[in-house]
């Protein structure tokens, strides 16, 4: 068996992983990123809208600074975030955007003079300052006080991903694509690397490393309808869950994006609304301005998704063979804007819907989009539970997003967190000596080979992997959606417990030889169901509504009892429920909990706490 050694091993080659690897390589260490697909196909590249950083170059961003960005982020999180981390992020974001410009990102730039823009369907005029000519431009996004989202057309993720991957090639970071990590090599105290499966040949391979980082993106594919790429299935998370000692943070915090297209759930960017697009109902009437007079379509995503669902429940949805939806209207932005700054949107609508958004309305509904939860780390990106293990980006719960992340903050997080955590990893590597225990390595490999053999021979049973996966997805869709109740969540947990048993009895129908896709799906299924249980059980226990987590039976945000982060462990492999523990949401409080300014809701104050 091939054994490959490196100083830093990154599971994932999207923006967060590659950014951290560049930092390690710059400090003189070897770094390898494992990736299911060629790096540039990473889901980072699908991000359209942009990256938030308080550069304040645009006239509509005047007066912006890290303090304002920080405040928006904390409010957006519904006070569920770690404020120390949000501060670190807001302060560093402008530097990282400029660094990206230096490395080659073609950011859209300020063009001085008069121009028009739209807000809530109405036309306004602005004048960009002469002295800002050629600096990085910004557009508007939801939940922000200023125009702060840096962008390249609506292909920001793609453009930044190209630049980052170029940088990796330049500084010698290796990307082993078509490689899937399937188990962690660890002894309950330290992480030593992973066992991976080559997706060119199907062979197992050992990667040994002093530091290992999870940067594998979100896990939206545990839901049936999601904007996520098919690779965002939480495979790398399952490795962490299976250690028993690495907790997942805030798994119940799941973001639904207001504008997934119907029926395929492909995302059209929030930039549509940022640039002045409106949401319409079955009568082609605007409604968000009634629910949220101040922010309207530009309230945070949790709030907009909730009102959309509410509005459809009230009977104002558009009926279709795929269920009810609403309309997104960008017609008034005009052909030049739509085929320029919203070109991906234009292509998605014409290619996948047969809808021309210059003249026609776009059918949209809220769809699973972002996982605020993930591998819980401290502010240095070090995972709880295992030495030498780190995580960054969507896969991590570094926790600048709390219970709802703002649009444009995740793409910015990838490079900002990647940079900060990459530096911390380089410091760790500097003084690090490791011994690799050969027995531990061979035991891990043997255990994985045994799992594969059992799946291929069907010795555990003959459950169909795709059917069990669908059962898990349906359970979450029914019980752990935008609106949640005790009854629904209890049923979801029970169904998932049954699904967990089925997932242990999967047998392949194909022969499992080579790059067998059925085997790949089967290897992660049990772990996925465990993650689904962490999500549903965490949501059942959290008896309040905060950000994206909405309990209809507990509509108030309860700061008295729930200003906490959920930590979910799967302590023993045979447990049928996760073990939940809690920690304070933030140890540093710069902004005490208060009203967000949108999404009116009752708040049970932390001051009500009996001493």
């Amino acid at each position, binding site marked *: 068996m091939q054994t490959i050694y490196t100083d830093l091993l990154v599971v994932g080659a999207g923006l967060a992983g590659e950014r951290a690897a560049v930092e390690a390589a710059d400090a003189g260490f070897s770094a390898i990123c494992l990736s299911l697909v060629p790096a540039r*196909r*990473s889901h980072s590249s699908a991000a359209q809208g942009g990256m938030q950083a308080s550069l304040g170059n645009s006239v509509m961003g005047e007066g912006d600074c890290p303090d304002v960005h920080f405040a928006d982020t904390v409010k957006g999180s519904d006070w569920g975030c770690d404020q120390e981390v949000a501060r670190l992020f807001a302060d560093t974001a402008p530097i990282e955007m400029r660094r990206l410009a*230096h490395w080659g990102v073609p950011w859209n730039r300020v063009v001085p003079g008069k121009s028009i823009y739209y807000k809530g369907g109405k036309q306004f005029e602005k004048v960009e300052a002469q002295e800002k000519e050629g600096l990085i431009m910004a557009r508007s996004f939801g939940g922000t006080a200023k125009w702060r989202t840096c962008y390249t057309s609506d292909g920001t993720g793609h453009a930044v991903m190209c630049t980052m991957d170029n940088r990796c*090639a330049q500084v010698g970071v290796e990307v082993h694509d078509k490689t899937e990590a399937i188990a962690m090599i660890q002894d309950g105290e330290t992480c030593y690397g992973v066992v991976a499966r080559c997706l*060119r040949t199907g062979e197992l391979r050992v990667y040994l490393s002093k530091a290992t980082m999870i940067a594998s993106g979100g896990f939206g594919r545990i839901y049936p309808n999601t904007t996520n790429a*098919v690779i965002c299935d939480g495979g790398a998370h399952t490795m962490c869950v299976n250690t028993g000692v690495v907790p997942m943070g805030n798994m119940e915090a799941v973001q639904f994006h207001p504008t997934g297209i119907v029926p395929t759930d492909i995302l059209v960017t929030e930039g549509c609304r940022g640039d002045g697009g409106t949401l319409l109902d079955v009568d082609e009437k605007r409604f968000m301005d009634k629910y949220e007079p101040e922010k309207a379509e530009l309230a945070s995503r949790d709030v907009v998704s909730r009102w959309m669902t509410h509005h459809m429940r009230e009977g104002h949805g558009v009926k279709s063979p795929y269920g009810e939806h609403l309309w997104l209207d960008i017609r008034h932005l005009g052909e030049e804007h739509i085929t320029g700054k919203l070109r991906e949107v234009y292509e998605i609508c014409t290619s996948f819907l047969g809808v021309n958004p210059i003249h026609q309305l776009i059918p949209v509904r809220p769809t699973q989009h972002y996982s605020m939860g993930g591998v819980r780390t401290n502010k240095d990106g070090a995972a709880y539970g295992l030495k030498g293990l780190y995580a960054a980006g969507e896969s991590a719960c570094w926790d600048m997003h709390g219970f709802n992340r703002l649009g444009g903050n995740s793409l910015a997080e990838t490079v900002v967190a990647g940079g900060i955590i990459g530096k911390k990893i380089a410091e760790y590597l500097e003084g690090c000596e490791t011994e690799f225990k050969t027995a531990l390595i061979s035991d891990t490999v043997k255990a994985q080979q045994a799992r594969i053999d059992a799946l291929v021979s069907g010795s555990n049973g003959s459950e169909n992997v795709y059917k069990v996966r669908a059962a898990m997805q349906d359970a979450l869709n029914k019980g752990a959606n935008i609106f949640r109740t005790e009854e629904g969540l209890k049923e979801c947990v029970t169904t998932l417990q049954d699904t967990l048993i089925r997932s242990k009895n999967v047998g392949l129908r194909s022969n499992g030889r080579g790059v067998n896709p059925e085997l790949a799906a089967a290897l992660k299924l049990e772990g996925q169901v465990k993650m689904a249980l962490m999500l549903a059980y965490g949501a059942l226990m959290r008896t309040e509504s905060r950000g994206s987590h909405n309990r209809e039976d507990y509509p108030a945000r309860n700061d008295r009892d729930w200003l906490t982060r959920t930590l979910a462990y799967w302590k023993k492999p045979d447990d049928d429920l996760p073990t939940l523990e809690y920690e304070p949401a933030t140890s540093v409080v710069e902004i005490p909990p208060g009203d967000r300014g949108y999404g009116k809701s009752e708040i049970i104050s932390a001051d009500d706490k009996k001493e």
Partner: protein
Amino acid sequence: MSRLLKFNIFRYNPQDEQSEPHMQEFVLEETDSMTLFIALNRIREEQDPSLQFDFCCRAGICGSCGMVINGRPGLACHTKTRDLPGEITLLPLPIFKLVGDLSVDTGSWFREMYTKTESWIHTDKEFDPNALEERMDNKEAVAIYELERCVECGCCVAACATARLREDFMGAAGLNRVARFLIDPRDQRTDNDYYEIIGNDMGIFGCMGLLACEDICPKHLPLQNQLGFLRRKMGITSLKRLFKK
């Protein structure tokens, strides 16, 4: 009752000694808004779980799912079955190494291309975290992005006659990459430097100008203009080099 679609799909698993390259037929009932992404997943989940194919974003953004669809390279995710006849033949992209069935290894090909073209900004300027960003004209930024929209699906290479004839040809994707850096004011490489990379038959002078690359590019990149632009530029550079000798 909707159409019954007949799929003829190329099958071969190089990792399985018993596998022989052949075409296999699958029949599937067409549903509303069906794309090849939906169809292939249904075939895999309901009929043959060993079927190999690549999808990632399934939204026409990442370029994973290039394949030959009824004779023409294209992205399977945004190919709607209603635009195809009842009989659909799917083959893996040529040129790239076959992984199995419809899956090919584009990653290695493109990685080699980055190395050859040194696909990064060449500059001796240091980044200063305390300074404002260097200014750039918005028109220039937009022009660079226009070329950077390539998703590396490999369709242009698969459709290229020169690439079929010579393994070392950079293809439109490679040449487009060079053009992207050539017009970037941040890159300090000269025409002469670029000539070293593409001023030969592996590069711009190997192109026969048949322009299938532009015809099939799923992102509608202006590949034809780039080839013309580079050929003119390299032609002039070539003459200058000749007279300097």
